[in-house]
Structure formats: C-alpha cells, structure tokens
C-alpha cells in the first residue's frame, strides 16, 4: 500500500488509518448500529442472525461472536466503534481494554492503580524490556 505508515513499529498497537477503515467499514458500521436500544435487543436475542444482516466477512463475524477484540482490530475494527459491543454487554472501557492485554481483569486494574503500563520497553517492537509487563 502506498500510504506512508511511520507507526508500524509501535508494539501491540494498530493505527486506524484509511486501509484499516476500508477493511473494517461494515464491522464498524455494525457496531454503530448498537447505539440504538432496539438494535441492542435484537442483537442480544440472536447475535448470529443480526450479524448476518451485515456484509461483514465470516472472520469478522466470528471475532465479534468470540468477543475477540484484538482480532476485531486486526480485521479493521476501531476501538471507539467496538466499544458499542462492550456497552451492549455491560462492560466498562477498563474491562474491554484489559481484555486485549492477556491480563486478568484484576491484574489489569491493579496495574493501572500502580501507575499503568510503563513506557520503557514499549516504544518499539523488539525493544529490550527492563521488566516484565
């Protein structure tokens, strides 16, 4: 792709650029539809049937059904859109963010209270980390 992407070496991070946006268009628009109460009800009643109303890829649908947010992001999802799924499930932003880190909810919350994930070792892919996190 000809877009200049200086951000590809940031670890554990996907920048929502035009390519991602194109890939995730219908996935994100599906998420947006959950801002209406009646759609949330319909989605919860039969997730698969609701997803099938959208021209999403099978992979995207599976990622939503599994609530695999990392996979959703890979497939073009953006966190502010995906957050509507979390809201539908009654999850907080902290629970959603934590779910992508491989940490338990408690461990993630404790990390935040202790000052958050440190920047050292997290600037560049392959950078040596001074400590485990």
């Amino acid at each position, binding site marked *: 792709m000809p877009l200049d992407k200086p951000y590809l070496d940031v670890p554990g991070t996907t920048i929502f650029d035009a390519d991602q946006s194109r890939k995730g268009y219908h996935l994100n628009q599906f998420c947006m539809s959950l801002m209406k109460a009646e759609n949330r009800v319909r989605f919860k009643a039969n997730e698969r049937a609701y997803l099938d109303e959208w021209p999403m890829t099978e992979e995207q649908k599976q990622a939503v059904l599994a609530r695999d947010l990392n996979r959703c992001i890979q497939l073009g999802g953006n966190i502010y859109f995906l957050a509507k799924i979390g*809201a539908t499930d009654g999850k907080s932003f902290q629970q959603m963010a934590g779910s992508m880190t491989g940490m338990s909810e408690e461990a993630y919350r404790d990390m935040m209270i202790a000052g958050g994930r440190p920047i050292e070792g997290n600037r560049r892919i392959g950078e040596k980390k001074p400590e485990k996190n």
Partner: protein
Amino acid sequence: MARITASVYTSHVPAIGAALDTGKAGEPYWQKVFAGYEFSKQWLREQRPDVVFLVYNDHATAFSLEMIPTFAIGCAAQFKPADEGWGPRPVPEVIGHPELAAHVAQSVIQQDFDLTIVNRMDVDHGLTVPLSLMCGQPPAWPCPVIPFAVNVVQYPVPSGRRCLNLGKAIRKAVESFDADLKVQVWGTGGMSHQLQGPRAGLINREFDNAFLDRLIADPEGLAAMPHIDYVREAGSEGIELVMWLIARGAMGDLAGAPPPKVRHRFYHVPASNTAVGHLILEESNQ
C-alpha cells in the same frame, strides 16, 4: 468586542462521567480525581464566561464512518447528550451560541481552515465530561457552549502545527465579533492512554508532564511534534492531546500579548485507563 479571557485543558475520560452519574463520585478512587477540580469549579464561578468554545473529539457517536470531518463546528441552538450505548448521560442539554458560532465559522473559513458546519448533532462524553468536571452537576450549564469537534479517530488527524494555527484563527474570529462577550476556549482529551491491543493501559508520566510544561512555555515548539511521537510515547489514544494546541493557540501571547498566568495545574493517574491532566491559563491582561 468579544474577547478570550482564559483557556482550560482537561482529560474527558468517560468513566468520570459514569462515576458522577451513578453516585460513585465519593469513592476514594474517584475522590483523587475530583479533588483536582475543586479549585476549578470555584474559579469558573468567579470567572464565569459568556460562552465556552469547547474543542473535543467525537468517539464514533455523532460521526460514523460515513462522514469524517477533520474540523466540525456546531452552529445549532442546542445539542443533546448522546446515547453512547448505555443511554444518554443524565446531564443538561447543551445550549449553543449560533451567532458567535456562525461568525467564527465564517471568519475561520476565510482564514483558510476548511471547516464542516454542523447544524444538528448529539454530543458525547468528550464534550459533556469536561463540563461535569468544571461545573459539577447543575440543573443547567452555566453558559452557552460552541462544540468544536476534531477528527482524532481515523488517521491522519490534523497536525499539531495546524491545530495551533487554528487556535490563532479562532482568536482573531472571536475578537472581530461585535458583542461584549467573555469567551473561554477549552481543549480536551488525553493525557497518555491506550485503549486497544496488548499495549493497552500505557501511561507515560514523564511525557505528560513535559507536555504540560511545554504547552505553558513553548507552544510553538510543541506544535512541531509529529503524530508518531504522540502515539509512541502517549499511547494510540494519547493523540487526542493535539486538540489542546487549538485552545493554546487562542491565547494572546502568541499574538504579542504577555504570557498567560497559570491559575491551576493538576495531574493524576489513573482514571480508568487514562492519565488525567488539567490546566487553567488566564490572560494576564484581564
């Protein structure tokens, strides 16, 4: 003539709104956040503006992927708090200032900023949480608010330089408005936070505090910082901090006046996933 009297900077974490709206504001976790705004609420009562020009970003609420404006100015008479998936926040409607908004839009477009004019939109936590932090829970917001939404969701977002220059253009626009209004410009979002992927939870105190230092003393230098530095150092959602440069650009020192007075500065980690930063700068010739 209208004039800019102060600028206010603050994070706009949704969980802060949720804590207020669900009666959790008294819990120790949240008290540490709200304590940083006690001074500010008192200050706002004393320095009450006639209009707040509130720079924020929409979080996939009013704007889906159908249309993504880089800069959008709200010219309507009122704006409803949005349903972001858990019902609208129980906060007052936002009353706009259509005349000043239209004037700023006209002036700023003629200064070569390619705004999108918006006459109907719901406003999300990006706009309502700063109002809650600065005003508490009143039955009505203390003054009209002009919502100014910046795209920081889909890359590329506007550069720091562009944002600072936009602030300067907004100042000129306000100063050419033919009514005696005190206007504050608020910049919101940030500070360091990342909500996505294995790096979620990133916080960078040193970056944040250096950002506050430079915002006060070296805004022109800070405006040269490229996006990648925000993303790398402050997390993918830390890019929201470019919006603070719009408010900073509106201060008089960048147009030859003396430096602003730092009336208040606050920093705290965490609120949910985010580092909370807050600053009040007052024009010194008030």
